[in-house]
């Protein structure tokens, strides 16, 4: 293990920035080069990167992070309704309020560890979800979801024109590529902060807590504030992601807080590689990409794809694969979940590393083979 140098980190950041900003170009060939999907990549990337700061560094598995996502969305929509359609205040308020929620939930949940922590966060998530549907309807608008209306005050914007206004950044309309680039900049900032945390003494201490918390205490650290800080940071990431969702589509519903949504971010993180810098982003990208393809697919499309097969085989193949696409996407997701945990606990990043090592060994062994052969000839 080599302590990474500061200069390397700047190179990583430069490459990362370039790759993210040119995403519309290089993702077009795989059919993902349009703003809606790109935006989703960025938003869920932020969500997963933030989740990884908690789960990847401290090992605390939260099953309630969707709460902060929901809080972020609701706050953003309220900011659009009450203040202005400008996205900056929405993002700032959402992130801060999610942080406040994270302080409260984290403070209580972190009094326990292991599975008790998971269940505490799950309990808070269920409480928030149930309340958003019932008593908090004045704030959340219950099942319908919170949306913009013509009667919203929007005190900073002044009187609205015809129809519902759209979100802007100081007058720049946040639809299409502008929206994506706003999310992309947020992603770059989010990644930068995550990189700094990973490379900081603070990050090392979090890893040490994951490795042996008891020892940390006898080493002179008060571990709880460290855990709470990590929890709040990751909660704020989720809040940011939630607000960005509301920017794309100014609507917030309680289903965003459901624990299956919390489960999804866990999956993204472990699929990509828990505790790695880029893994969660890969995970989010892979899941959202395939969700997009798979859930849009139907039997007709499948027949087209498999039309090269003989008819009887084509029908069988379509019947089987049909279970996994469209509405069956969740089945694929569940299977993916199991396969990753069973066979690749290190996620995609670990997989790449292994494949890399395997190739290198292959090259080396063939190299030595030739060397021995050459030696034998002599």
């Amino acid at each position, binding site marked *: *293990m080599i302590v990474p*140098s*500061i200069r390397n980190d700047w190179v990583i950041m430069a490459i990362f920035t370039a790759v993210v900003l040119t995403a519309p170009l290089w993702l077009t060939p795989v059919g993902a080069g349009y703003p809606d999907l790109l935006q989703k990549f960025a938003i869920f990337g932020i969500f997963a990167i933030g989740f990884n700061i908690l789960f990847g560094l401290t090992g605390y598995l939260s099953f309630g992070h969707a709460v902060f996502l929901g809080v972020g969305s609701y706050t953003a929509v309220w900011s659009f309704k009450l203040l202005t359609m400008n996205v900056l205040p929405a993002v700032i308020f959402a992130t801060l309020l999610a942080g406040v929620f994270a302080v409260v939930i984290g403070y209580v949940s972190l009094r326990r560890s292991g599975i008790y922590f998971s269940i505490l966060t799950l309990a808070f998530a269920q409480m928030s979800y149930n309340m958003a549907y019932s008593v908090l309807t004045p704030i959340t608008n219950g099942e319908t979801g919170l949306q913009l209306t013509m009667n919203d005050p929007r005190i900073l914007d002044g009187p609205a024109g015809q129809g519902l206004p759209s979100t802007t950044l100081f007058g720049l309309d946040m639809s299409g590529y502008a929206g994506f680039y706003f999310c992309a900049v947020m992603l770059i900032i989010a990644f930068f902060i995550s990189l*700094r945390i990973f490379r*900081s003494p603070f990050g090392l201490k979090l890893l*040490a807590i994951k490795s042996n918390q008891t020892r940390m205490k*006898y*080493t002179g650290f008060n571990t709880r504030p460290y855990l709470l800080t990590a929890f709040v940071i990751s909660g704020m990431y989720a809040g940011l992601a939630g607000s960005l969702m509301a920017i794309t589509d100014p609507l917030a519903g309680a289903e965003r807080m459901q624990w299956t949504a919390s489960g999804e971010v866990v999956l993204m993180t472990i699929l990509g590689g828990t505790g790695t810098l880029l893994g969660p982003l890969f995970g989010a990208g892979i899941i959202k990409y395939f969700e997009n393809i798979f859930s849009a697919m139907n039997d007709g499309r499948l027949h087209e794809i498999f039309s090269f097969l003989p008819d009887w085989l084509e029908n069988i193949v379509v019947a089987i694969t049909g279970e996994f696409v469209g509405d069956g996407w969740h089945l694929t997701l569940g299977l993916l979940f199991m396969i990753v945990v069973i066979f690749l606990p290190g996620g995609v990043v670990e997989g790449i590393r292994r494949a890399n090592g395997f190739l290198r060994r292959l090259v080396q062994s063939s190299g030595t083979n030739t060397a021995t052969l050459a030696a034998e000839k002599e």
Partner: protein
Amino acid sequence: MSIVLSIKNVDKTFGGLHALGDINLDIEEGKTHAIIGPNGAGKSTLLNCCIGRLIPDSGTVEFDGKNMIGMQPHEINHAGMVRVFQTPEIFPDLSVLQNVMIPALAKRDGTFKFNAFGSLAAEKGIEADAVHILEDMGLKAHIHKHAGSMSRGDKRRLELAMGLVQHPRLLLLDEPTAGMARHDTNRTIDLLKRIKERGMTKIIIEHDMHVVFSLADRISVLAQGRIIASGTPDEIRGNPKVQEAYLGGAEL
């Protein structure tokens, strides 16, 4: 001579078992104080009461004149009392170097510091300290290894390095050489002697009489939860009570 640690009237029972009974012990500054005794005599219980892992039923543990009872482990650490564990309590998932950097960071950052934007790579001072100690312990070659993958003996030495890097006022060593090969033991004795020259106060719990008599300035003998004798190595060597209780009458 000033007293660093003063244990007064400490009692501890587990269920009906009297683990410690009316322990009184003063540790002088700069001295190496060994606590010996047969298995189950209460040596580890006594250490645990000092560092906050256990809370005694009654009595006080005063460090630098301050009562430590009821304080959190991390507070006791920062007061200057550091324990080296008998079973290696390291960070198995971190590198050896990082294992030693962590306690060094604790010494500098205190119980909590949010330095999330500092770079670890810029912590040259901390790193140099850690490398220096690891060199001392003969672990230089391993510094980038996974700590969890090391041999048990190496883990013990790493554990020791983690304690030493904090330069504590009082170091509590729980059988520092248990499970080490003879030449490793000698090496550790040499190292502990060198620390002694620097004036670090130590409490050592040890089975190995060779280690005890080469290091200790004073020895206390614990049997069935009570201190039955205290004195210089020579005094202890000649004490018939000790030979009776601890050595079953055999000559030392």
